[in-house]
């Protein structure tokens, strides 16, 4: 049962991954990404990590990809199509490289033949995750909060409107600055 479900989600996730790269329209890429994220959420469920699965849906599918879709629509109002840059690598070449990489990974992973023990009762529940976050992983957790602060400071510093140089009065709104890096993340 679990193996079958995993097979289905794995195929869906891979298909989504290919879709992200291969789709012609950015919106379709974003939707394919959504498929990947949702398949992974099911995978987390199979790994008995139900809380993480819910967060995956709420945070990634519900917030981050929505923002992607948003930006795509704001940038390319006309049916979401943008100028397409020429691919740096011919498709066949890319496929072969990906295949080789996959084979290499398989060969590497073949050395590991351990089955994980069944999870302890209560594993993956919010209580369990909470205890881990505020116990053993407290310092990384707080470091991540500092990281988010950095992200916010950066987004504000790079994204806020600038007065035109040499103009002391708050002038008319300028065109948005080219790509605030922190925002793109």
């Amino acid at each position: 049962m679990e193996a079958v479900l995993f097979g289905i989600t794995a195929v869906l996730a891979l298909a989504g991954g290919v879709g992200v790269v291969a789709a012609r329209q950015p919106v379709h890429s974003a939707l394919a990404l959504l498929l990947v994220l949702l398949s992974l959420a099911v995978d987390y469920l199979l790994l008995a990590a139900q809380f993480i699965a819910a967060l995956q849906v709420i945070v990634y599918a519900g917030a981050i990809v929505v923002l992607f879709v948003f930006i795509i629509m704001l940038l390319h109002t006309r049916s979401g199509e943008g100028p397409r840059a020429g691919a740096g690598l011919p498709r066949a070449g890319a496929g072969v490289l990906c295949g080789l990489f996959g084979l290499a990974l398989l060969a590497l992973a073949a050395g590991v033949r351990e089955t994980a023990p069944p999870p302890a009762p209560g594993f993956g529940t919010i209580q369990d995750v909470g205890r881990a976050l505020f116990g053993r992983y407290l310092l990384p957790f707080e470091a991540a909060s500092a990281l988010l602060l950095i992200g916010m400071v950066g987004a504000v510093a790079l994204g806020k409107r600038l007065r035109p140089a040499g103009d002391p009065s708050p002038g008319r709104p300028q065109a948005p600055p080219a790509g605030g890096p922190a925002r793109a993340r």
Partner: protein
Amino acid sequence: MTWADLSLIAPELALAAAACAALLQDAWATGPALESRSRGPAAAWIALGGVCAALLLLGVRPAGAAQVGFAGMYVRDGITRVVDLAALAAAGLGVMLSPPYLERFRLPAGEYHALLLLSTAGAMLMGASRNLVLLFLGLEMLSFPLYVLAALARRSRRSQEAGLKYLLLGAFATAFFVYGVALVYGASGTADLSRLGRAPDVPLLHAGVAFLVIGLGFEAALVPFHAWAPDVYEGAPMPATAFMSVIAKVGAFAGLLRLFPQALPQLAPAWGQMLAAIAVATMILGNLAALAQSNVKRLLAYSGVAHAGYILIGIASGGPAGSSAVLYYLLVYVAMNLGAFGVLLLLERRGEEADRVEDLAGLLGRAPWAAVVLAACMVSLAGLPPTAGFIAKLYLFRAALQDHRVALALVGALTSVVSVYYYLRVASVALSAGAADAVAVRHSRFAGVGLALAAAGVLWLGIVPGAITALVQQAVQALR
């Protein structure tokens, strides 16, 4: 978590608190206006206060046995101490050297200082991490502010380009690092660096470690992950370039120290070869490319690449000798590189950065002290006595020879000879007569003190290295 845990990270906490204070002060002084109006040194004073507090907290803690906290995540030992010292020196000098530039080019002081301090805290976390998860977060905390700092000059297209480039490539490298963490965890069942030594020797572990090297090597600008360095160094506003050039090295090499000589001594034969090869490529490419540069920022970028190669010699050699040489070199590199950038920060060519070599002409006549400091730093970067650069390279090459890596030491020495040419070219232009009239020299007491400190460090570490040598050797005693 206990109070003991908290007191372990007291220096990092001091920096974070100062960063928040700098932001709040800026917000308070600016009010509802769009752009920061407080270009006075208030933020700089706050940041400096944070750095001093962190140094003080570092100093009052007795240099005893290693202390582990946060459920084994964080370790405060001799290595942590030296890395903290290097990172705090970078932050302190970075803060002291920037005010004239920030004022002239209207960079937001609050954000600049806050990001600088948080980046420093990230490098310190990397130096203290005993777990791959913390190492990763430290790396992110180190590099993310640098991406923003690189793009902080909003009116400059080159700065925007530099920030974006750095961010995209950095994100790519980070992805490799995370993937490496996952593979290492998959192979060994633990992310705890102290337990990695007992991990089974499977191919998956090697693959994971290789990915970790990519992530850290990007930050340290090792060949072949150095391609971002020249463009980002050139495009970023100069104070950001100066700070990033040293703090990224401190953090990345602290991470490499924690990873290789400390956590994976059993795999030394395998990674020793790999790192040695990278070191050779880095030294050769960095030095040769630096020869052709006429822009000082680009020149120092390639010089940074070359120095990353030198420092990697210490990691590749492993053992206490190599590790202590790395720590010593990091301290020296902070002083000499920031000294060199500090002088450039004083110059200005028609409202722009004076970053061409010929802009330095006649510096001796107008700002003799600055010219002398620049010359001393260049001599030190080239690795000539009586400066610190000489002693530092000596330790590195000695470590390589002790580990029977003659080729490494040889390539290091030869490329150092090559580097003498381009460093001394800069120094001689600065000391020459003649004058680039378009170039103005700004005077600032704040920056002057910073320059004096950097120069003092370069000379002190070069002439009487005893105290610091003892410190770094004591730091790596646990490796024996």
